[in-house]
């Protein structure tokens, strides 16, 4: 047995492993006092309490912990487990196909009135009609322009604000309380005010979009910027970077993928708000088309517009995701 001449300056504590093997095996879990004694009498007692009065190994007053029966083998997928690529694709296809099939069977069975739930074919032909007449494109263009303009303004305000909040303590202290409060005021509740302030024109709709997006995007940008590891900032200083160079060459590239992610989440919100704005007061746009169709009970048209809104949203999402993957290759 080694460990007899430990090169320590302090006295070596009598470790439990120094006991002869017989004593270790004799310490049975049931008997409270092990017959061989809990410590080898030839060994000097270690620190007080080590060779104690109890029964278990090492002089503890309890036996081994209770055991649980082993878990039954389960066929359910394990937590955190990934699926194989073929399974993943099957599931992805199902995710779209199953709701479609439910829709088709519901409308074909006649269980639901056509006025409430038009068949996919009816929706498709309504969409084709709207496209032929040109109103689909002009409405889509009106909405896309509003979203584009409003979202750009919101990003132009929120990114510098969020950047400042995330990188400078004073900006955080100054802006966080007010933005945290404004964020919880529903943007749609501002519609009457905006109409009073800005009238029924374009500006009130764009203002609604900005209000709906800017606060969330500011806070999310600030969160991303704040996550930069402090040692990156420190090492930048020791490499000679001035403050503005650290902001431009270190914080910005570090935070860019996360900032695009935040924009992606908030782009979806922007689409919600443009439709809300157009539902209330507009003479063009996809939301306006929905209110028009509602007036004449043209649910097939409403469905067609909804599908178009969904597809445009998906396109924006995919484009921003591609942009994120491009600038954030290093983060994966």
């Amino acid at each position: 047995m080694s460990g007899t001449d430990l090169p320590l300056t302090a006295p070596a504590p009598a470790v439990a492993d120094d006991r002869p093997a017989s004593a270790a095996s004799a310490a049975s879990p049931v008997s409270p006092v092990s017959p061989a004694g809990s410590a080898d009498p030839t060994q000097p007692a270690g620190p007080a309490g080590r060779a104690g009065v109890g029964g278990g190994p090492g002089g503890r007053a309890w036996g081994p912990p209770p055991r649980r029966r082993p878990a039954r083998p389960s066929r359910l997928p394990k937590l955190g487990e990934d699926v194989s690529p073929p399974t993943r694709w099957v599931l992805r296809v199902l995710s779209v196909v199953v709701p479609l099939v439910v829709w088709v069977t519901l409308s074909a069975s006649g269980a639901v009135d056509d006025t409430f739930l038009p068949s996919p074919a009816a929706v498709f032909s309504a969409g084709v009609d709207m496209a032929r007449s040109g109103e689909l494109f002009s409405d889509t263009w009106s909405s896309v322009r509003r979203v584009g303009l409003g979202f750009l303004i919101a990003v132009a305000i929120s990114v510098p604000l969020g950047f400042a909040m995330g990188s400078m303590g004073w900006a955080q202290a100054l802006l966080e309380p007010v933005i945290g409060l404004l964020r919880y005021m529903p943007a749609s509740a501002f519609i009457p005010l905006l109409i009073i302030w800005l009238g029924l024109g374009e500006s009130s709709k764009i203002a609604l979009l900005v209000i709906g997006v800017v606060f969330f995007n500011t806070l999310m940008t600030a969160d991303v910027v704040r996550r930069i590891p402090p040692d990156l900032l420190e090492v930048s200083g020791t490499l000679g970077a001035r403050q503005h160079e650290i902001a431009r060459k270190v914080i910005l590239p570090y935070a860019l993928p996360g900032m695009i992610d935040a924009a992606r989440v908030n782009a979806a919100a922007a689409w919600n708000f443009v439709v809300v704005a157009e539902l209330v007061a507009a003479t063009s746009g996809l939301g306006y088309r929905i209110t028009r169709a509602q007036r004449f009970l043209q649910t097939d048209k409403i469905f067609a517009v909804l599908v178009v809104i969904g597809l445009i949203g998906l396109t924006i999402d995919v484009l921003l995701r591609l942009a994120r993957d491009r600038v954030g290759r290093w983060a994966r």
Partner: protein
Amino acid sequence: MSGPDLTKTPATAPAVPAPTGEGGGALLLRGVGMDFHAGRRRPAGAPAIPTLVGVDLAVAPGEFVCIVGASGSGKSTLLRLVAGLIRPTEGQVTLDGRPVEGPGPERGLVCQSGALFPWRTAAANIAFGLELLPMPRAERRRRVAWYLNEVGLEAYGDRLPGQLSGGQRQRVAIARALACEPRVVLLDEPFGALDVQTKEDMQLFLRQVWADTGTTVLMVTHDVEEAVFLGQRVVVLASDPGRVVADLPVRLPAGRDLGTRRDPAFLELRAEVEDLVRLHHRAHTSRLAATAG
């Protein structure tokens, strides 16, 4: 101030002459103290003792000095003071006679994590400091290539940090600091996160880089063996408050290799430093236990 420094030797003359000495700067710490709560109300639970007190340390141009001490002895604080990341509450740090007022490229820093820019390739990481200077692109590329080669990563220049091993990442971090041609390189536990074999390679590599560049090196580590193996001098810090308790010359041949670790002189000094560190570490933990109880 701390008690009489019985073991302290005059700190000015290096035991072994530096290989070139020309690329290195002279570092001087005079009466340096750091109290993070100085002048403010001490928050509950914060230690009532300053982090560092009365540190005098002179590092000659081109010298390789290692600072050891148990955790809590303020060795990282000491390095951050020299880097200019924090300002001392007492005393002064000077490099070549000029006071240190903030971080700068003449004092390169390498930390345990490496702190590489994850979106930049190895070559672009090394280029970072040079990009801030008015330097033609071709000249920058030439220098980056030289440093990539110096750290043995010429084939890895296009890799992102995430695609490099831990040892390679530290090599890039060292090259990035060296590319600014600093007067002194500050290393804060640079090999602390590496496995034993990689660490051994990196120690030999660091000695080689030091010999090639002739820069002054100040390295903080808790690994006594590493400190004795690498340094020309080993400075021992104790805690409560952090202070220098020993400054020992390493009387070993300049060409260190794996055989150095079996040299009786090496073993003797290692044991001496280990005993010192252990002694002060135990005093520190028992003081902690006394205040906790």
